[in-house]
């Protein structure tokens, strides 16, 4: 019974959303606001139960209990081990500094967690991003020429390899603004534009395909699941 009610609610909300295709209306706005509200509420609950409670609250409360047993002289090897949870006070305290923004006098404290986040983010991202998105991609563009030299690529693959290199060079030239785009540079940048257009076209085609998939899924739900509860 609960499942059938769920299907009817989902079908009603799906139809509310699709009613926008005719024109904007209160049913659409109701479903849209409901979706936003529930998504945020659900996200907060999940973040609490899957993040804050297991990663901060539980280890910290266990560590505090362990500390109490040490103070009262009832410590065991397990409770001593649980004391390591006290270390989490440091990241928790730094995280709490984000709330310093709520007090005008202490707003400046927010600089510390932001500085740590930016420092960590940049430090971890720069070498890995360079490796994954610059070095590996450059190697991937050039490496097939070794296979051409070894004679292991088919004519079609050789064509593809050369086309990729032409595309990369011409597209980079299009974005090279330190030189006036005249003569050969102008022609090469126009070829770059052509590659970009093909890329945008492919991306747009895929976007249409993806949006259609969402519609097909909802139509399948309405026909099979919802109408299935009626007929």
């Amino acid at each position: 019974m609960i499942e059938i009610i769920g299907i009817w609610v989902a079908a009603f909300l799906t139809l509310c959303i699709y009613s926008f295709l005719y024109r904007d209306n209160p049913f659409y706005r109701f479903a849209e606001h409901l979706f936003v509200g529930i998504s945020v509420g659900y996200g907060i609950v999940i973040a609490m139960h899957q993040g804050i409670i297991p990663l901060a609250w539980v280890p910290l409360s266990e560590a505090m209990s362990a500390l109490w047993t040490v103070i009262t002289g009832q410590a065991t090897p397990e409770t001593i081990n649980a004391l390591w949870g006290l270390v989490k006070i440091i990241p928790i305290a730094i995280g709490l500094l984000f709330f310093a923004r709520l007090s005008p006098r202490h707003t400046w404290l927010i600089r510390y967690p932001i500085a740590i986040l930016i420092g960590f983010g940049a430090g971890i991202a720069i070498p890995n991003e360079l490796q994954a998105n610059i070095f590996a991609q450059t190697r991937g563009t050039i490496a097939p020429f070794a296979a051409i030299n070894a004679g292991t690529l088919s004519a079609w693959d050789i064509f593809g390899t050369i086309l990729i290199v032409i595309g990369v060079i011409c597209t980079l030239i299009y974005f090279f603004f330190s030189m006036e785009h005249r003569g050969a540079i102008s022609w090469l940048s126009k070829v770059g534009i052509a590659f970009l257009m093909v890329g945008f076209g492919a991306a747009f085609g895929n976007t249409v395909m993806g949006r259609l998939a969402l519609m097909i899924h909802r139509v399948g739900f309405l026909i099979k699941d919802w109408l299935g509860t009626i007929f």
Partner: protein
Amino acid sequence: MLERFMNMDRRIIFILIALVVIIPTLIPIRLPITVSEPTQKLYDYIDTLPSGSTIMIAFDYGPSSLAEPEPMAKAVMQHCFSKGVKVIGMTLYANTPTLAHKLMRRIAAENKAVYGEDYIFLGYRPGALQVILGMGTNIANVFETDYEKTPITEIPMMQNITNYDQIALLLDLAAGSTTGAWIVYANTRYGLKIAAGVTAVIIAQMYPYLQTGQLIGLMPGYLGAAEYEKLLNVAGGDGTVGLNTASYAHLLIIGLVLLGNIAFFVHRRKEA
């Protein structure tokens, strides 16, 4: 006639699209499916894994984008369970744990897989980057318990799994930018093999990674799910049905784009 076509109410197009989606859903007319190389590579990789190997599936999509990744998840899990490959599920999306957990339970029940022995679901932890990096050192440091609150150390299939070194493959079922993060941080830093099943919207961004070998396989949207179902000999799977319906809608859209362009150029010539 031309004027009327140029000024056609867009709602007529919506009705046409609706008809083209509804009719094949009610009366399926199957179109042939040819398996592409990226999907074949993923299938071959999983197919050649020894029984008892472990793969990780990241369910990185939300309720609003599950249409394409879910059929892929079903097909890959079915393949894994039939080969005796263990599956660890997790997600970087806060809205997905319930969906993914329910899906894993259902597919496992259909394939008689046992929770804790053949598969587990770790759930969600905030901070995608920290989660990816943390699991590279020790999965239990990030997920001390699974989604059902059982300590990781008490789960039988996790006894010999510490970090990515014991994971044969990470399959990212994604509707956003998470595949890039898995490649940059898990593949580049820890050498974890990555494959992806992504929605059609982001597929164009994934091909460069496939060409360089940073992705060992790739399932593109409904097409990837349908291809994987064909490799498994699954008739009438969600991916196959979806792709079949989508093909008719694509034909209509191509026809409308061509007609629109012809009408535009004829109209412009007449005006000149």
